[in-house]
Every structure is written in structure tokens, then in C-alpha cells.
């Protein structure tokens, strides 16, 4: 039903929120482990770091940044409605405004992260 029901913006916003949240949770676990290694076993850590600095690693970071940014923006949207329930009448507009910020902040961000991989 989750995939068959034709929801609108609100349902997509929720699905993305969940997916990005789970993705960030996975990364947080990985990240605590690798930083722990930075203290405990620097050689292994520096190897992991090489992956982070490689092209696939950078693509992952762009995705991570996108998940963070989306989750933050949509989280603010939800909180705004929690505290001012009358904003629910504009939930779609707020969502589209989120995407404007997402693209506006995300594209330059992605460019900075990818620049070394592109040789610029």
C-alpha cells in the first residue's frame, strides 16, 4: 500500500525524511567508528580517510550532505507546523521553498566537495 497509494507532496516529504534519516544514522555509526580509530589506530584511520578523499568517497559525501540538508530543512518545516498548526495550510508551499534552499545551497556545496575529483 505504501507504494501503491497516491499520496501527494506530504507523503513524499515524509518518505524522504525517513530515508535520509536512516542514511544519516548509518553514516553516524561509521563516522564514530572511524574517528575512534583516529585515536586508537591511526594507520587504519588514514586508510579510511583515503577513501573519503577519493572520487567515490566524495560522491558519498555529496549524498550525505544532501541527506543532511534535506533532513534539516524538512525537519524545520515539520517543527514550524508543530508550533504553529495553522501553517499546515501552506505545507506544500513550504516544501517547495525547502527545495529552492536545497538547490541554492546544495549545488555550490556539491561543487566544492567534488572540485578536487574534477581536477579543478
Amino acid at each position: 500500500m505504501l507504494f501503491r497509494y497516491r499520496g501527494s507532496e506530504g507523503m513524499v516529504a515524509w518518505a524522504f525524511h525517513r530515508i535520509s534519516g536512516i542514511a544519516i544514522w548509518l553514516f553516524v555509526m561509521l563516522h564514530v567508528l572511524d574517528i575512534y580509530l583516529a585515536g586508537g589506530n591511526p594507520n587504519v584511520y588514514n586508510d579510511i580517510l583515503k577513501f573519503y578523499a577519493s572520487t567515490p568517497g566524495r560522491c558519498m559525501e555529496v549524498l550525505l550532505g544532501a541527506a543532511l540538508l534535506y533532513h534539516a530543512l524538512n525537519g524545520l518545516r515539520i517543527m514550524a507546523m508543530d508550533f504553529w498548526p495553522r501553517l499546515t495550510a501552506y505545507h506544500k508551499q513550504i516544501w517547495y521553498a525547502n527545495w529552492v534552499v536545497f538547490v541554492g545551497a546544495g549545488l555550490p556545496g556539491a561543487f566544492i566537495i567534488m572540485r578536487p575529483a574534477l581536477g579543478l
Partner: protein
Amino acid sequence: MALYSRSGRPRPQSGGFELAAWYFMRFSGVALCVLALTHFSLEHFLFDPSQEDSTWIFNQRWNSLFWRGFDWLLLMMVLLHAFLGMRTVTMDYLQGGRRTLALTSLYLVGVVLFAMGTIVVFVGMPAA
């Protein structure tokens, strides 16, 4: 006061935990907008992963108590927010024994990560 919940069974005495969790998700969410986005910008925009080896972390990035404190606060918020969020997801899709098992392992992993993170942030030393 109502003694029965909707299904007719005795009301679970949740002790307001759901309300507390609801509050905390919002509070930590706002905090993370600042903490996590600052952290991400530092590591990826101001600096670059190619320079962030362990010597750099301990000698430059964490050369002040402020940045160690900042990252520890981030760690605390992110772990609580992420694990409470995963609790929500678990409680949506699992029931009964499987739910208990999943939640217990979730909390255990959360505690272990919290300990590991705290140790490295506060007593992590430059690699010899």
C-alpha cells in the same frame, strides 16, 4: 481519569515518555541544524578530507577545548536524535518480541558508540 485505552485494555503507564521524546526530537533537531551543518561545512568546505589525517585532527582541529566541546555536544545530540528516530521507525514496523530485541540492540549500540565517541573526543591524543 480514563482507566482504559482505546482498545479496551488497561492504559499503558508510559509516564510521559512519548511526550518527552517528542520534545527532545524537536529540541535536538534545532540544535543539530547548527551543530551538524557547521561540522559538515568545516570538514568539507573550509578544509578537505585529503588533509584531515589523525595528526591534523588532534593537533589542529581539536587544539582547543571549544572545538572538542563542540564536537562532543554534536555527538551527544546526533546519537540521541538518530537513535530516538530509529526507535520511532522500529516501533512503527516491528511488534512483540522482535520489537523488544531490535530496541534492545539499538540502545546497546547507541551506548557503545556514545562511549567510544566520548573517549576519543576527550582523551584522544596525537598519534605517537
